[in-house]
């Protein structure tokens, strides 16, 4: 199987950056392999969750951020922590519950953060909650004039939580500089994606919130980086939140205790042939970005560093028992101070004062649209109850409450996916044989994976008119209201009249 990695490079990477990506992915993998050994030696206190096969996602996305930007990792985003500058000893000590860990042994895994230096929000085990929190981070960043981007990840599993939807709704309404990476690793613990959602692409959900979304091959670190960089740049330019769905595969069970016997073998085989690090090594060699000497040098450096870091962790003590009683409240132990990058006076009266009313722009157009759509056809439109706010001058970010769709971006198409020839004839993704997406058909003679994108299909912000997902007998296109026409209340009525 040969496949080109994403080309052309929209955001060209230097040789140094290319090698950085390799370093972090390999560091991520080697670190986790060491932790597997520690786990088997009973030196890991709790669970160990592997990100084997997903290194390109963590590294490629986080590498697109700047130092001032904020992340909130999920449990399989060790690579993102490393890119953010977290030393491997923090990962070791966290898992080993050592007193030297960032949480002093109060929590494990990737559950730690750093508000002041690296701008990392700690995750909790309840999925989805990081989405509203990082929306708030983005809102505060804008409020303080910091021009930051907030980024977090969610699995295919976590995308079913209420917090996911509430958070995205608020992020969209606020046009927050927030990037959500939906890390579709095919499995929520033991449940395949097809058992969770009836849609092929989780990125399609973006349209429901008015959030532009993209799909990218999660095992192609360059493609992941490029998609993330574009999304981050768009966010920073004030064009609202972004979603990127990365298609990848969890190559181990949910955690160490889980042998993942429920995963069809051919699925592992397919993805094993698409290992992100192997693919990237090949890419670096074929493009003459490195040679064996450069690789050996990086690999040796990783070994050296991890030796030191692991020894530090193993030699560290467990926390003293009395620590359990400390730190429930902040009793002056932290100084809370916002980092203002704009004039405070802009947010204080009289500058902040506004006329507190809702304004309706262009009433005749509003009423005509309402009448034409069939709601209250014979009488004038009812009093508007849901109209965009006239944005006050002091709130530039709110000037367009409805996010404009992103321009089509040819450079974001994962073209290599279209050109891809899968190594195995059928890719189940845990789906049953009834799944049309995987059936051989004239349109799909080679049984390509269903998410394979044709070059014409735009990743970011697909036009709902182009691709209606309503294939019902009446074929009523969804998204009518995007054209200014409200949904009809009666689905039986094609005209939308009652």
């Amino acid at each position: 199987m040969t496949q080109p990695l994403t080309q052309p490079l929209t955001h060209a990477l230097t040789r140094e950056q290319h090698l950085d990506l390799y370093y972090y992915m390999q560091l991520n993998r080697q670190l986790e392999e060491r932790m597997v050994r520690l786990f088997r030696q009973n030196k890991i206190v709790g669970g160990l969750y592997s990100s084997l096969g997903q290194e390109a996602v963590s590294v490629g996305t986080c590498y697109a951020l700047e130092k001032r930007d904020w992340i909130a990792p999920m449990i399989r985003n060790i690579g993102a922590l490393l890119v953010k500058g977290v030393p491997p000893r923090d990962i070791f000590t966290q898992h080993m519950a050592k007193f030297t860990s960032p949480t002093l042994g109060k929590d494990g895994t990737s559950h730690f953060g750093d508000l002041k230096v690296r701008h990392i929000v700690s995750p909790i085990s309840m999925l989805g909650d990081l989405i509203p929190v990082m929306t708030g981070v983005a809102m505060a960043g804008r409020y303080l004039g910091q021009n930051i981007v907030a980024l977090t990840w969610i699995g295919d599993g976590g995308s079913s939580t209420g917090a996911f939807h509430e958070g995205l709704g608020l992020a969209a309404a606020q046009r927050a500089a927030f990037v959500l990476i939906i890390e579709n690793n095919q499995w929520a613990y033991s449940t395949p994606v097809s058992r969770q959602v009836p849609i092929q692409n989780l990125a399609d959900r973006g349209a429901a919130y008015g959030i532009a979304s993209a799909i990218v091959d999660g095992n192609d670190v360059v493609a992941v980086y490029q998609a993330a960089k574009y999304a981050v740049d768009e966010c920073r330019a004030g064009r609202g939140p972004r979603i990127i769905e990365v298609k990848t595969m969890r190559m181990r069970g949910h955690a160490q205790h889980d042998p993942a016997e429920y995963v069809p073998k051919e699925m592992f085989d397919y993805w094993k042939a698409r290992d992100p690090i192997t693919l990237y090594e090949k890419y670096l060699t074929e493009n003459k970005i490195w040679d064996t000497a450069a690789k050996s040098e990086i690999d040796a450096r990783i070994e050296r560093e991890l030796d030191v870091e692991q020894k530090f962790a193993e030699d560290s003590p467990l926390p003293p028992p009395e620590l359990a009683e400390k730190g429930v409240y902040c009793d002056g132990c932290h100084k809370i101070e916002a980092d203002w990058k704009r004039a405070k006076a802009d947010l204080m009266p009289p500058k902040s004062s506004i006329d507190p009313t809702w304004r309706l722009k262009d009433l005749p157009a509003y009423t005509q649209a309402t009448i034409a759509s069939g709601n209250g056809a014979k009488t004038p439109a009812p009093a508007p109850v849901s109209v965009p706010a006239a944005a006050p001058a002091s709130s530039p970010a709110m000037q367009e409450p409805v996010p404009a769709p992103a321009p089509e971006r040819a450079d974001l198409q994962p073209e290599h996916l279209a050109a891809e020839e899968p190594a195995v004839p059928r890719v189940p993704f845990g789906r049953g044989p009834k799944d049309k997406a995987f059936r051989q058909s004239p349109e799909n003679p080679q049984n390509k994976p269903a998410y394979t994108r044709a070059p014409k299909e735009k990743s970011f912000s697909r036009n709902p008119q182009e691709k209606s997902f309503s294939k019902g007998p009446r074929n009523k296109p969804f998204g009518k209201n995007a054209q200014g026409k409200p949904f009809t209340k009666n689905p039986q009525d094609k005209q939308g009249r009652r």
Partner: protein
Amino acid sequence: MSHTAPSASSKVVPTSGPITMVDAIRQAMFEEMERDPAVVAIGEDIGVYGGAFKVTDGLLAKFGRERVIETPIAETAIIGAACGMSFLGLRPVAEMQFIDFIACCFNQVTNFVAKSHYLWGAPVPMVIRGPSGGGVHGGPFHSANPEMYFVHTPGLKVIYPSTPSDAKGLLKSAIRDNNPVLFFEHKYLYRRLKEEMPPGDYTLPIGKAIVRRPGRDLTIVSYAAMAHTAMEASVQLAKEGIEAEVIDLRTLLPLDKDTILTSVKKTNKLLVVHEDTRTGGIAGEIAALVFEGAFEDLDGPVARVTALDTPVPYAPPLEERFLPNTEKVVAAARELAKY
């Protein structure tokens, strides 16, 4: 063409004379937002409309949309966003339209907000405030007293004031506190009493109870609307020659153990009155506290008058049966005084 809806009334906060609890809370928010641009308000309908109970009326006009953030109906998003904002050093005041709806964001409050400082050293300086309590025929979903879920959650502070000046002083302290504070506002008290505000930048320490009425025969511990019920009962009891000492807790977490124990050691009898349901209400915790710290001083059993262990019913006769009232408190105190 531009069409302008009638301007919402922008209430000016009274600057002198007695004011209601609604006005006192609004005044606290005005003063804190004027003092510190890091203070922002977030919630449903808190801007143009001024909040369901008009607590935030006028804030939008003065502070603008960046500081008075109207949200979708999404309590988890409200609390999550406020938490995220606090990580960057802001001090958000989040409104639950009715405190009952805090159940919708229970996970965000108890797992994310409450645990951040203990686990990874991230203080969350935010306030969650909202109208609570019954007695106004709001029915089962608009009358709740869910404070004990949060008193049981380490990392939070829980305030439940009973007077306008306490509400003002404690809300200002809550906004300045480095920890997440839940601020319960009993809606029965919102407009039923008026009080002159102490002058200047008035704050009250969190975690300090107050003795509303000194007495020698028994101690009645209460808070919020029931503090007034306890006071009414104490007047009636005085006519019968029973001098009750009435303690208003004001803060439920951290609990002011000293004030309770000092009083019980003096009166030797304890009656706890709360509007929360009986099982798992704070009366049980206070009873345990007194057994641990003043068992040998007790001359009788710890008594409690609470709401029934049911949801808050809607029909007036049912709600009256559900809630504690002066008669029930007097009767219980009379029994206790016999020991």
